[in-house]
């Protein structure tokens, strides 16, 4: 299918969905899903293709180019699939909230402008789609009003700063190379100096780093993710911030070649080391902060920041194994994190907006499917073997260890062990423990929410056992970047210095589980006991009186709290305060009263006359 037609259908479909909503609500819901199904099918049909099409040449004499290659394909497909799941999920979710037409329109616009970004072949169309994405994201983040408006403002201010940095970078590239088409730039940058390349890299890193939420550019993300409507949080966390990742890969591997990137600058102080360092900090600090969160979505948001650190580490390291690990982790993270946001969203939907971990509990009895989905999502996040996160993290650790970077590997591994703590907290506080009486009549999640959750859980599991499927596509894209691809098979990686084979691990775990289950069943039958019927050492806990999971990791968090301040956020807050104060000062002068302005003009003239009379300057 032609790329132009695909994009035309996307944006036409979004608008049509909005207009149809004025006539029939049901038709609108179905049309939104159909458009996304069409997008998924259309992108799937482009598998393995590499082609470029010039869309339009007249705009300011710049050609607007669309292109598809395996690397763009995997991003586009992930966006379409996650978008599809999120839109199905929002059917019932958003009906409660009102302004549904607007929500669908913006949602589709965000999804399709993201696909537009990954399919663009020059910086002009990239920038246009980028801005479309930023603004529609802003509208969706602020959808809930109230606190959400502040979160949206935080996002858009940072986003605009990033866009400006990108604009400067684009203009500089244009003056240097005379074109904005990626291939043309890539060809003419060969002779560019190392200093210039680092300058360009830093400009674009500000833009992409803000979207990708790298520390210290992450501050917009936690409020935005927690205040946005849950189906959109799934898109936001699953794919939207990964557009930054896309930009990083495009810039480092597609435009500046990776061999050039790795050897840039001084041996110690260069952009690559800076990025690796920031990646490591991005893993470490947000992981610790996530431990403190009591709001389910905020916890997941901080976890997203931390996981983005792994991806950055993989991309910036610059070996083909690390790129595979980073890209695979992007793909896996999109699946399990959007799944987790949907799980929290389903709980929020049924409990009428409760996200506070300390007031939930025991929901496994009421929402079993949601629990299983949550468990699988959390396992993927930790990287328990048989889920997809395991393979991608293994690739990143392995490349860091064999290439002699044990400290980076240490940070990455430690981040995972922190992930276990907050993941268990999430699962335990929502689904395990005592079921409060007020939730005894709670219903299970509706079918339209279960379907996307079950689908995403299955993908988490399937790509965990068969990592060869996505790795195959990633290998194709690495070939496109002129790198040597990894030696893979369906079950994993078969490199010389250590290989990973999910076949052995999966067989051992599944067979072992079955044998032990049979053994377990051989014993006498159990009797079921109520949740209050348990051993309390003579001091029973009255039902509904205490919530014993509050301050779950208190001894630990009390120890690390003094060392853990969000320096970045404090810095920006101080900056914002400074600007506001300066603004207030300026407002004293610009009073808006014409009489005052007339006074200023007269005073100014008086000063000029005084100077002329006294010093005779002119």
């Amino acid at each position: 299918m032609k790329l132009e037609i695909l994009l035309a259908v996307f944006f036409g479909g979004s608008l049509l969905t909005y207009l149809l909503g004025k006539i029939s609500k049901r038709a609108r819901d179905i049309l939104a899903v159909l458009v996304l199904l069409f997008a998924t099918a259309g992108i799937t049909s482009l598998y393995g293709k590499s082609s470029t099409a010039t869309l339009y040449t007249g705009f300011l004499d710049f050609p607007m180019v669309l292109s598809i290659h395996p690397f763009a394909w995997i991003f586009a497909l992930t966006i379409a699939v996650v978008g599809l799941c999120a839109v199905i999920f929002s059917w019932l979710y958003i009906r409660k909230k009102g302004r549904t037409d607007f929500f669908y329109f913006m949602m589709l616009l965000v999804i399709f402008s993201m696909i537009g970004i990954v399919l663009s072949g020059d910086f002009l169309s990239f920038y246009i789609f980028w801005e479309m994405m930023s603004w529609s994201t802003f509208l969706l983040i602020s959808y809930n009003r109230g606190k959400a408006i502040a979160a949206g403002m935080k996002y858009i201010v940072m986003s605009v700063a990033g866009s400006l940095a990108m604009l400067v970078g684009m203009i500089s590239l244009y003056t240097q190379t005379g074109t904005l088409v990626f291939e043309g730039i890539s060809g003419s940058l060969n002779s560019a100096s190392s200093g210039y390349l680092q300058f360009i890299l830093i400009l674009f890193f500000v833009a992409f780093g803000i979207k990708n939420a790298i520390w210290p550019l992450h501050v917009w993300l936690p409020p935005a993710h927690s205040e946005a409507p849950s189906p959109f949080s799934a898109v936001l966390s699953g794919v939207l911030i990964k557009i930054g990742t896309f930009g990083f890969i495009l810039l480092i591997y597609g435009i500046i070649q990776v061999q050039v990137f790795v050897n840039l600058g001084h041996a110690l102080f260069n952009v690559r080391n800076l990025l690796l360092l920031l990646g490591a900090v991005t893993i470490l600090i947000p992981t610790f902060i996530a431990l403190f969160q009591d709001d389910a979505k905020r916890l997941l948001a901080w976890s997203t920041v931390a996981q983005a650190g792994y991806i950055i580490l993989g991309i910036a390291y610059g070996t083909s194994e690390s790129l595979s690990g980073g890209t695979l982790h992007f793909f896996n993270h999109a699946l399990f994190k959007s799944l987790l946001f949907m799980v929290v969203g389903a709980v929020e939907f049924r409990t009428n907006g409760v996200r506070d971990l300390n007031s939930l509990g025991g929901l496994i009895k009421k929402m079993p499917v949601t629990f299983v989905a949550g468990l699988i999502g959390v396992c993927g996040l930790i990287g328990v073997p048989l889920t997809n996160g395991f393979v991608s993290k293994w690739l990143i650790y392995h490349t860091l260890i064999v290439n002699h970077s044990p400290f980076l590997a240490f940070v990455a591994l430690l981040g995972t062990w922190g992930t276990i703590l907050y993941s268990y907290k999430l699962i335990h506080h929502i689904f395990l423990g005592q079921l409060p009486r007020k939730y005894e009549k709670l219903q299970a999640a509706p079918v339209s929410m279960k379907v996307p959750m079950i689908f995403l859980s299955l993908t988490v599991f399937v790509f965990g056992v068969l990592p060869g499927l996505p790795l195959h596509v990633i290998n194709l894209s690495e070939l496109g970047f002129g790198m040597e691809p990894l030696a893979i098979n369906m079950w994993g990686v078969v490199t010389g210095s250590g290989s990973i084979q999910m076949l052995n691990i999966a067989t051992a775990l599944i067979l072992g589980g079955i044998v032990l289950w049979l053994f377990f069943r051989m014993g006498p039958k159990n009797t079921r006991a109520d949740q209050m019927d348990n051993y309390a050492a003579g001091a029973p806990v009255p039902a509904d009186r205490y919530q014993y999971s509050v301050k779950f990791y208190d001894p630990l968090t009390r120890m690390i709290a003094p060392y853990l301040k969000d320096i970045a956020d404090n810095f920006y807050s101080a900056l914002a305060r400074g600007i506001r104060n300066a603004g207030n000062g300026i407002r004293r002068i610009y009073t808006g009263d014409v009489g005052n302005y007339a006074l200023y003009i007269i005073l100014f003239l008086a000063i000029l006359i005084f100077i002329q009379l006294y010093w005779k300057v002119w």
Partner: protein
Amino acid sequence: MVLVLQILFVSILACLVGLFLIGLSRKVTARIHWRYGPPLSQPFIDIVKWFSQTAVSHGKLFDAGMIFSLTGSVVVVLFLPFGGICPLSGSGGLLVILYLMLIAPLGIALSAGESANPHASIGVSRKMQLAFGYELSLLMILLSLMTYYRTVSIVDIVETQIQAGWSLVQLPLVVSGLAYLLIMPAIMGIRPFEMIQAPQEISSGPMAEYGGKFLAFATLQHAFNIYIGLSLFVNLFMGGGSNAGYFLIKLLLAFMVFQVVHAVWPRFRIEQAVRYLWRWPALLAFIGLIIVWVTTS
């Protein structure tokens, strides 16, 4: 066929060794305390007895978590070299072992979580914090090993040691080895790091709700856990073993060292434990990693 036999041999032997060590632990502790102590066969008798009793269950996850946990432990055993036998080598090495070792505590945590017993949740919370405490050092120690031997395969590490001598006495690794010795009791969950169970305080923590076959499974899991903890140390720092007998002797030796600590020490509180783990062992492990990093680059 050979593989199936190896798998059966290693998993059953590991289980027997673990149960024997539980019995021995009670006996040795009793003797140090000037008591007589239960017979060595007591854990075996207990397992059979518990398995024939009816138990109380709190739900599907309560059962499934237990099975999941024991499965995780059995599978880890298959990845660890047992004196020349390693049924599932060549599928990811030490990193996979690290990850598989997560499954057992995670399974218990999920199972205990569903029981809605505050004591169980307190126990799980302590386990999580303690694990975070010792993993900080353990990860650095394992990384210094992997960096020093330039491999992620535990089989390769054992083979190199059989030729070149124990890692514990290799000069660049000795600091890491010391750190490992300091965190071993925490990894095995013995005193002074017994606050997860703390029978007198939180009525055995995660174990509070287990009876009958659940308790049997939990004890089997504990037996595997002891074997895994010791076996990892022996394989990584005491040269593994060229044959099974030699390997078991080393295992026993290591066990006795930590048993003496277990018998005479009181219990830490959780924050004392984490503070200890993040101070001296972490410092040693960090120095060890720097030494290895500098000497190998």
